[in-house]
């Protein structure tokens, strides 16, 4: 069951993501971003990386966190499948990412995401949990 849906944006791709908790929202957002990039079922021999990221507020933190995860692929050719949030405060996130190095024979790439934007960005607490919106430049 996917924890996100695509939003209509004329030029780019936006997603709306849900999570029972704020931590789950952050984890689901990074996993959703990689679901846009690659067929996640092809990532099956995972190792781990821990990242610690800072931000001015929740929204900025989310963008910075997604930026870092995106760089792991765009810069280091490493694909993320799963995310576990180890710590989440107002200004910092520590997360354990599970994934593996990109292999063109093994992994089916779906979309190039150029960047994570601040445009239309939101994180909200709802009656049923947390909801976030992010727009990517594709």
């Amino acid at each position: 069951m996917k924890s996100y849906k695509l939003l209509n944006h004329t030029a780019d791709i936006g997603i709306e993501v849900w999570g029972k908790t704020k931590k789950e929202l952050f984890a689901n957002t990074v996993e959703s971003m990689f679901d846009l990039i690659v067929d996640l079922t092809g990532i099956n021999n995972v190792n781990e990386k821990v990242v610690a990221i800072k931000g001015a507020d929740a929204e900025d933190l989310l963008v910075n966190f997604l930026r870092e995860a995106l760089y792991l692929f765009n810069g280091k050719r490493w694909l993320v499948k799963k995310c576990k949030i180890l710590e989440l405060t107002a200004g910092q996130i520590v997360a354990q990412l599970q994934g593996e190095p990109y292999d063109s024979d093994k992994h089916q790439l779906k979309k190039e995401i150029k960047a994570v934007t601040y445009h239309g960005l939101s994180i909200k607490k709802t009656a049923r949990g947390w909801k976030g919106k992010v727009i990517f430049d594709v």
Partner: protein
Amino acid sequence: MSEIKLERIDDNRLLLPQTGKMKVPGIIYANEKIYQLLKGDESTKQVANVAHLPGIVNYSLAMPDVHWGYGFPIGGVAAFDLESGIVSPGGVGYDINCGCRLIATNLSFADVKDRISDLTTALYQHIPSGVGSTGSVKLSGKDQKKVLEEGAKWAVKAGFGLTEDLEATEDSGAMTGADSDHVSARALERGKQQLGTLGSGNHFLEIEVVQEIFDEAAAQAFGLRKGQIVIMIHSGSRGLGYQICDDYLALMVKHMQETKIELPDRQLACAYLNTTRGQNYLAAMACGANYAWANRQLLMHHTREIFEKTLRMAPRELGMRLVYDVCHNIAKIEEFKIQGKMKKLCVHRKGATRAFPAGHDAVPERYKSVGQPVLIPGDMGTGSFVLVGQEKAMEETFGSACHGAGRVMSRTQATKVSQGRSISRELADQGVLVMASSKGTLREEMPEAYKNLQDVVQVMHEAGIAKKVARLKAVACIKG
């Protein structure tokens, strides 16, 4: 849905009145037909948002291909005072110096129509495209520094082209002020393997035929004639450019509070032009621009080689020469007449093309009597237009015109409506052979997802900003 009320100025322009904290009004180039398409779009609000930025001069402008972007609208043009104004990485875009390059040949469609399929296959096989593609040139650290500071000039020196190619490139393919010390290690890393790659999404390489000539004198100056085979390349600065934009955007967002600039959208984060941060971004952005020019120069060089090999023709016989290369995502320091006085401004073109008129210093000698070629690519089925810059562009749009058709349908919508259809077969029926590494991209980029290019170009033509020179019809297209 935007609640902003627009007032019609004339057949081709709408006024977005100055309200609230807007520092200037907005002007949108649109006739009634295009205005109807704009109504459901967020781009009008984005034109108003840009008008909030400090030091903006005259108007926040939108070209007729305007559509909803992030921060600035795509198709947005805004100029800023060098003392009181700002530079915004989001106002240039992630793909710094994304642009187009048009190559003329001595070939006529009639002579090679049976070879189009061979040529397309060879181009598709040898020009790296698609998500995650890497190029054939692996750069050493020293070479990469040269690419960033010398752009297409480096490429020509390294044997990937001719000196005359540089004369037909905006800024001669090398933007001044580039300093690679202001480019991050991450950006450099991403740039190492992608030189000479097309990329994905809306980037393409097309074989086109000159279908119609509107302005004989300009067409002759540009070396274009009816029935001629030409090649259009659309690509940019790849991961290196995206990373430069992202690095500086993050930096500027972090310092927004101390600059005390109130922003309606964080994506508009910016720095004053007369600060170190602003200047460092311009120096890094110029590196991104130069990488893109070197990239398109390499793509052209490979295209030349592939044509020579496939058709077994000598370079002289083929006569592949660069008509022009323009960027459409950039910030540049240029001079314009403001209230009767010449003034240097920082012009942001986010999805807009420079369109300088006859006689302008920046127009190559061979085009000086007619004006600068303005290259407008359309969707895969339509092909492209070549326009020529007019004096009115200097008066009204800071020397800028539109850059394409502009999307009208989102990517998700396009994917939905193309369900169960074969876009490549539909295009084949229209005489366009398409090879793409991703079927998803083809769906997203289907012709219906874009505005009618003719309508967009007509607005520029009738407004007198850039005049129609030639219409090009695509016969083959390779995409990522």
